[in-house]
């Protein structure tokens, strides 16, 4: 099932709706990286609140998305990792290293606001 991507201000917001297949995740990654250019977005939020499992493939794909969009000039933040999903990730040894995470959509937006403001305010 494809993930709908919302455009809000300078940001792209992808809300994962259900259990995603590997293929869906790869398509989401590619669509977001493409749309960062299309809409000149400065930030990407991936909301994983309803994602049932974050396994090594999902973690790797989100990490790749974060690095790829950073190379295109946009920051990515993952929001909504549930407590039990976080527990399983740690047991599995997945840390999403280098990828910022925030509690929920609101915190994610606040994070991107801070992050992108600093860029424009650079002396």
């Amino acid at each position, binding site marked *: 099932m494809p993930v709908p991507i919302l455009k809000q201000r300078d940001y792209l917001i992808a809300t994962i709706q259900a*259990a995603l297949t590997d293929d869906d995740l790869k398509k989401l990654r590619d669509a977001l990286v493409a749309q960062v250019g299309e809409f000149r977005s400065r930030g990407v939020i991936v909301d994983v609140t309803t994602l*049932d499992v974050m*396994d*090594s493939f999902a973690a790797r794909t989100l990490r790749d998305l974060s690095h790829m969009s950073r190379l295109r000039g946009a920051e990515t933040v993952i929001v909504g990792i549930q407590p039990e999903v976080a527990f399983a990730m740690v*047991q*599995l040894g997945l840390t999403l290293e280098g990828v910022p995470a925030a509690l929920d959509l609101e915190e994610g937006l606040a994070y991107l606001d801070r992050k992108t403001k600093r860029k424009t305010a650079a002396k």
Partner: protein
Amino acid sequence: MADEVGLVNDEAVVPIRSDGDIVTARQEGRALASLLGFSSTEATLIATAISELARNIVLYAKRGEIVLALVEDHGRRGIVVTARDEGPGIVDVRKALMDGHSTSGGLGLGLPGVRRLMDDFEIVSQIGKGTTVTVKRWKQGAGPV
């Protein structure tokens, strides 16, 4: 190999042929774990382990199956997950169980991670014949302490 997901003699067999089946297998596993009274956190751990095992089948063997069943031992109950394939087999099982080892460009966390998620872990692999990974997780506080 069964063609449909079904519970036969307390056993659910999920054929694994594509990445979509990975999702089916972990959803079935979560459902069975919840049915057995595992907490939502434990069910997530079990579903995550199933996801990793099913992906190994798709990546290395192309096809195989995940068998989910109840297990009882001295009054304690648990879930047993068997991931079976007739793929190429693992050349060095010991190495595959070490963190950081992978032959498919992955994170190399698959098997050691699964081992940490579950209570019991068993692997039998034969070159050219296939691999069977059997993992169990016991219900906490259900058995003798």
